[in-house]
């Protein structure tokens, strides 16, 4: 057994810093590179791509990235784990195989984890007793299931462990929890058991710290952010894990950013609910038992974490079409920029009303004044405001209403208040609104599939 492993975060979301994984692989020693590509909305986008082309439906950045890192990973024995397989991990794996072949790199073993995509088997699962009602609102699934764009079960770390045991150098999964990507190598390397709740929770906490990339190493840091050095080459977090469950959060020394108790604490608080019950498919971690201590420059040790048994459920994430929306902006300048923008909004709303259009929502925000903090924005002297961007967004089940809204914004340039600009982008076009349906399903009803792609 290894006495420690270094697991590096390479992406916090699909669209994150493209060279971060390259830096992780080339600027210091690591054993694993883990990359999270999936957000709630991502699965529906990927499913649409796959509907158009059955070879698509995964993060296409992955094969591109492999061109840059595969040789280094092979030479330095770095394993790669990512959930960027989306709704088509097999095609993603085949694309990566092709990259390896093109580069003349032999013996790259790629495993996929799937079985998470239940879109085509919802009715079957309902027959078998799955409830799948909305876990936030309690609404029954019947009204919406015909509109589902995607439906995926969140698997945990253990299918990835299975893939590693099969000898995989690269593991590409569908919808796996972000935390599972980081926890899996610890289970695999240290032989942790499925009921080692404290250890699994420690690895899960490490996964939570790594899952948003540089958000744990000084990115989006609301403490003394101006003291953060070298944002240009910010180092993504690395979890140095030990068999006993102690974990050190660090980064490559030559990269920028900062790892201290404050940067790590902020990430620990990110998007959590009840801290005593951080639920994953692998365990229930208690975030109130986390101890943090600075043990060196850019080194924070986390220890003492307690966990509880996993629940009998997987979380399911479904998405469905829920109408259309559009957003348009116009910018008004001094003097009286805010007054002008407010008047333009009234004129626009008056015209939309006369047209008899149907909207579920019309939202106006004044960027530069109250768009972020709403009623908390203090009253301002208009003389001190150089410009205000009027931002109007609409949402409707009726696409033609949304389309017409898009045609009503530009006319304000010549038919409303003065000193207006910023309409070069063209008419706002309707985009599909994708709503989200979270549910639970009994673990016994779904089985992960783990296979080596030849």
């Amino acid at each position, binding site marked *: 057994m290894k006495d420690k492993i270094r697991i590096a975060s390479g992406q916090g979301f699909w669209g994150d810093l493209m060279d971060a994984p390259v830096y992780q692989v080339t600027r210091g020693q690591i054993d694993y590179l883990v990359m999270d590509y999936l957000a709630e909305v991502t699965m529906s986008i990927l499913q649409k791509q796959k509907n158009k082309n059955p070879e698509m439906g995964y993060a296409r950045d992955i094969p591109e990235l492999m061109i840059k890192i595969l040789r280094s990973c092979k030479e330095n024995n770095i394993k790669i784990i990512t959930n960027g397989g989306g709704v088509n991990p097999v095609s993603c794996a085949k694309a990566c195989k092709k990259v390896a072949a093109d580069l003349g790199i032999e013996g790259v073993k790629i495993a996929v984890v799937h079985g998470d995509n239940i879109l085509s088997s919802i009715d079957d699962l309902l027959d078998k007793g799955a409830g799948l009602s909305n876990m936030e609102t309690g609404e029954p699934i019947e009204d919406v299931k015909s509109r589902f764009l995607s439906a995926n079960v969140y698997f945990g770390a253990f299918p990835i462990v299975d893939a590693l045991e099969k000898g995989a150098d690269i593991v590409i999964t569908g919808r796996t929890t972000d935390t599972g990507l980081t926890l899996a190598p610890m289970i695999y390397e240290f032989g942790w058991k499925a009921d080692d709740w404290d250890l699994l929770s420690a690895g899960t906490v490490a996964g939570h710290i790594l899952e948003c990339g540089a958000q744990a190493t000084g990115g989006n840091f609301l403490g003394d952010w101006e003291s953060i050095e070298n944002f240009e080459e910010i180092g993504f977090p690395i979890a140095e894990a030990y068999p006993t469950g102690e974990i050190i959060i660090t980064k490559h020394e030559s990269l920028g950013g900062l790892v201290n108790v404050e940067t790590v604490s902020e990430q620990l608080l990110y998007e959590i609910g009840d801290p005593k019950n951080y639920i994953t498919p692998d365990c229930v971690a208690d975030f109130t038992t986390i101890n943090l201590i600075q043990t060196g420059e850019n080194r924070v040790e986390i220890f003492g974490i307690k966990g509880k048994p996993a629940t009998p459920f997987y979380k399911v994430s479904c998405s469905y079409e829920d109408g259309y929306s559009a957003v348009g902006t116009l910018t008004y300048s001094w003097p009286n920029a805010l007054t002008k923008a407010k008047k333009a909004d009234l004129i626009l709303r008056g015209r939309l009303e006369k047209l008899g259009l149907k909207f579920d929502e019309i939202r106006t925000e004044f960027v530069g004044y109250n768009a972020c903090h709403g009623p908390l924005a203090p009253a301002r002297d208009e003389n001190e405001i150089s410009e205000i961007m009027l931002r109007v967004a609409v949402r409707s089940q009726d696409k033609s209403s949304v389309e017409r809204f898009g045609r009503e914004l530009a006319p304000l340039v010549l038919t409303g208040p003065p000193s207006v600009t910023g309409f070069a982008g063209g008419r706002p076009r309707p985009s599909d609104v994708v*709503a989200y349906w979270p549910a639970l399903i009994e673990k016994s009803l779904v089985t992960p599939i783990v296979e080596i792609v030849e």
Partner: protein
Amino acid sequence: MKKIKLIEFTHARSGDKGDAANVGVIAFTRQGYTIIDKYLTVDRVKQYFDGICLGDVIRYELPNLNALNFILNNTLGGGGTVSTKLDAQGKTLASAILGLEIEIEDKELNLLTLESPEHD
């Protein structure tokens, strides 16, 4: 009694959980935590986010991290993928809460200012 804003002794991070936002507030020091624990009540936070948070507020304590975690229900205009808000995911609510002002006793203020600004 002295007025003090959270930005003077805490930092924060926020994000989305469906239509709810979570706002975590972290005191730079242990003494700072005892102050937010005492003064940053559910009612105070609910009142502060009046007009933004349209649902109830839930508070969780993480004394181990000198932190409180607030869940602001019905806050994001329907949630990340549906919301028409510029800040559909509540990313800037963390900085918003740092403007919250509380009134503390003089001796509490003294304890705050006596401590090193560096984390212990």
